[in-house]
């Protein structure tokens, strides 16, 4: 089983990298972009028996810093 974890800065937390990407897109002539948020994707190869609950616990303990980040788990 594989799991894909999406980690994003929470709404309201400033994302200066996303802002820089938005500016760069504007400089390339893409005027239609009003906001960019940049996150990360972590793919996990899971042994038999690992559950979505385990992955959520991994997110809480390590993969995301829940002070500033939110996460979503996708089981593939």
């Amino acid at each position, binding site marked *: 089983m594989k799991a894909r974890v999406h980690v994003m*800065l929470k709404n309201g*937390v*400033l994302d*200066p*990298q996303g802002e*820089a990407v938005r500016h760069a897109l504007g400089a390339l002539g893409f005027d239609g972009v009003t906001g960019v948020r940049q996150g990360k994707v972590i793919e996990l190869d899971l042994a038999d028996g690992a559950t979505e609950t385990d992955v959520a616990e991994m997110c809480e*303990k*390590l*993969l995301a*810093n829940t*002070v*500033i980040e939110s996460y979503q788990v996708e089981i593939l």
Partner: protein
Amino acid sequence: MRAAVVVFPGSNCDRDLAVAFSAAGAEVTMVWHKDNTLPEGVDIVGIPGGFSYGDYLRCGAIAAQSPICRAVKAHADRGGYVLGVCNGFQVLTETGILPGALLRNSGLKYICKTVDLKVETNQSAFTEGYDSGQVIGIPVAHHDGNYFADPATLAALNDQDRVAFRYVDNPNGAVEDIAGILSENRRVLGMMPHPERAADAGHGGTDGSAMFRGLAGALTAA
């Protein structure tokens, strides 16, 4: 005063921190990230600056899960003193010993320069060598020093007089210009600027020396 300085793979201010503690009269032991315990009788643990574990995942995130950090957490829970500088501050927030988090600098650039800090409180062993309101020059060197905490945490930090230092001219976007904070029992200090880089007249001033002298005074008497 007996001090222990933690060394992670990628730490690069560990020796500077050890020298600053020694200059204040401390007996210093270096401890390795794989160690499970701190040396017997340690009064204060220093968590140095650098790029522990290459800053992988998030700054300080992997270090926070290392064996030595469990010992540091137990030491803090027992009421022991901890000083985390720069990456050490990031490690302390990642372990949950201090609240909040350090985000990428708002200007996206790595900043390496001496900045003015206002000492917000001298009510701690770390800051008793200063006057509240005093302005000191301490170097910063970081890419992720933009302190963030939610409004409830900020209110608690302010109400409990736990903001130790604020930037006079905020270099990194930190909320409320916060450069360093204390734990509830005032025995853990995390700060982005490097006091150990301002503890020798030959190297960038001596405004940081009072912190190590103050600690030596407080912890030797205790």
